[in-house]
């Protein structure tokens, strides 16, 4: 019966990892809903949810239960196939994008496994691009939802979304090319490991946020626009468009859009952590302590909190301001950042 005892084959760890990421994303989304409501309440001098569970912690689960028992409505003139395909596209791409994001260094899980396992679902050597490719598929869910609903508010939301995503995808992509040049790799694991070097004598502090401050700002701004969050939440601007692309959705089809939005936030934060914030490295904490994944989760949590903070602090832009900002400020800034980084690597060997 030796196969019942550790070390187990590494495949068990990978299956467990897959389940952890899947369930972790769902619960991260639920947790974010709670944080969002609590924080919004705090900023508006309310108390927020308090009734379900301690501190209202179980509120998101109560919400999901409520949504499950709601009737699923469909407008009579809607395109049935696309109407139901759209939320699936949104949710699937949101989950899939996280599959190539590493959340910690390779580990044997305290000797449970026979060989070290990478803490990510799939290790791809063009991981950065895969995240982009899948995220760029996510916009179809929103556009199709807008079109298939056959409602003018939904259609306007869908059109706005596609225009916004196209405008910001360029700066989003350009902003991280600087990191790719510095790390000389497209694998997220290798990029994180490159940030484990020392900077100015401080060990594990060569984070790219210090070498690429402009790149990080552009990435974060464009990331907020890509995930349709305030102050760039035009696809669902409720004062003008009711609820934008998901106006006509109810019950669990609506819940899928909601889930996708929060998972996309988690993915953008995780990618930003891997690319700019040193991933699982922290100054003076040697990797041998084995708490890399905790550091990673803490950084992602901080970025997610920043998301909520921004949403309840800044008012929404005007639509023409959004376009002007994207094309005339963000894109030139990312080009300048790229050229400066390339020159720095070429002439000063950064």
């Amino acid at each position, binding site marked *: 019966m030796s196969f019942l005892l550790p070390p187990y084959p590494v495949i068990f760890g990978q299956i467990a990892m897959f389940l952890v990421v899947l369930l972790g994303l769902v619960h991260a989304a639920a947790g974010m809903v709670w944080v969002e409501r609590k924080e919004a309440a705090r900023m508006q001098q309310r108390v927020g949810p308090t009734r379900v569970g301690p501190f209202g912690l179980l509120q998101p689960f109560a919400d999901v239960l409520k949504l499950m028992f709601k009737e699923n409505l469909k407008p009579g003139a809607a*395109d049935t196939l*696309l109407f139901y395909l759209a939320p699936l596209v949104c949710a699937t791409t949101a989950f899939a994008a996280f599959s190539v994001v590493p959340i910690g260094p390779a580990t044997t899980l305290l000797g449970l496994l026979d060989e070290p396992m990478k803490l990510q679902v799939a290790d*791809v*050597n*063009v991981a950065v*691009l*895969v995240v*982009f*490719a*899948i995220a*760029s*598929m996510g*916009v*179809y869910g929103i*556009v*199709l939802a*807008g*079109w298939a609903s056959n409602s003018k508010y939904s*259609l306007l939301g*869908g*059109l706005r979304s*596609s*225009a916004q*995503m*196209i405008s910001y*995808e360029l700066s989003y992509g350009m902003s991280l090319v600087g990191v790719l040049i510095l790390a000389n790799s*497209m694998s997220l694991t290798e990029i994180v490991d490159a940030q484990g070097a020392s900077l100015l004598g401080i060990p594990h502090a060569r984070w790219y946020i210090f070498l690429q401050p402009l790149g990080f700002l552009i990435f974060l701004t464009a990331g907020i626009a890509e995930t349709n969050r305030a102050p760039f939440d035009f696809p669902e601007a409720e004062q003008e468009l009711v609820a934008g692309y998901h106006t006509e959705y109810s019950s669990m089809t609506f819940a899928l859009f909601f889930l996708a939005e929060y998972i996309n936030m988690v993915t953008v934060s995780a990618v930003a952590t891997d690319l700019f914030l040193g991933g699982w490295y922290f100054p003076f904490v040697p990797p041998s302590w084995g708490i890399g994944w905790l550091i990673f989760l803490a950084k992602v949590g901080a970025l997610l909190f920043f998301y909520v903070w921004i949403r309840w602090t800044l008012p929404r832009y005007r639509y023409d301001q959004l376009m002007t900002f994207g094309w005339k400020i963000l894109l030139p800034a990312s080009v300048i950042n790229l050229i400066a980084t390339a020159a720095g690597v070429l002439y000063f060997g950064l």
Partner: protein
Amino acid sequence: MTLFYLFAALAVVSSLLVIAQRNPIYSVLLLIASFGALSGLYVLLEAPFAAVIQIIVYAGAIMVLFLFVVMLLNAPQEDTEYDVRVHPLMRPGPLKFGAALAVLLAVELVWALSSAPPASAFGPLPEITVTTIGRTLFTTYAFPFEVTSLLILVAMVGAVLMARREEHSGERGKR
């Protein structure tokens, strides 16, 4: 090999459906599916970079614009009884043209298969990385690369010019 046939079949069937059905939105979506299948073929050829770029550029950026235009135009359905009864591909003109194309394709296939050198296995391929692609693109293929970018620039200038002219004539009309 199973995967190859799966992706190939997906690409062929979805490409056929792009022209075989009428709703332009579905055509755009099927074209995206076809691009996805193509990208799967690139993965099987051990070219992950090309596969991902295929998705980002074609499926992600260009097709969003296509969808955008189709949705904005929102082509009204003005089908006559004849239009409904007879599929566009089944009308006399397209039928003749299609038949001619099919004959041409068959002749070409026979010619290509009969005159092709016997198949031989490839040697081991060098690993294709982003570095090698970038290096060849900016050394060996620098000229075609630059010419292509010039072409795209011309197209952009043309589009801007056409948009500007419309605006101009509109102003004159007001006066």
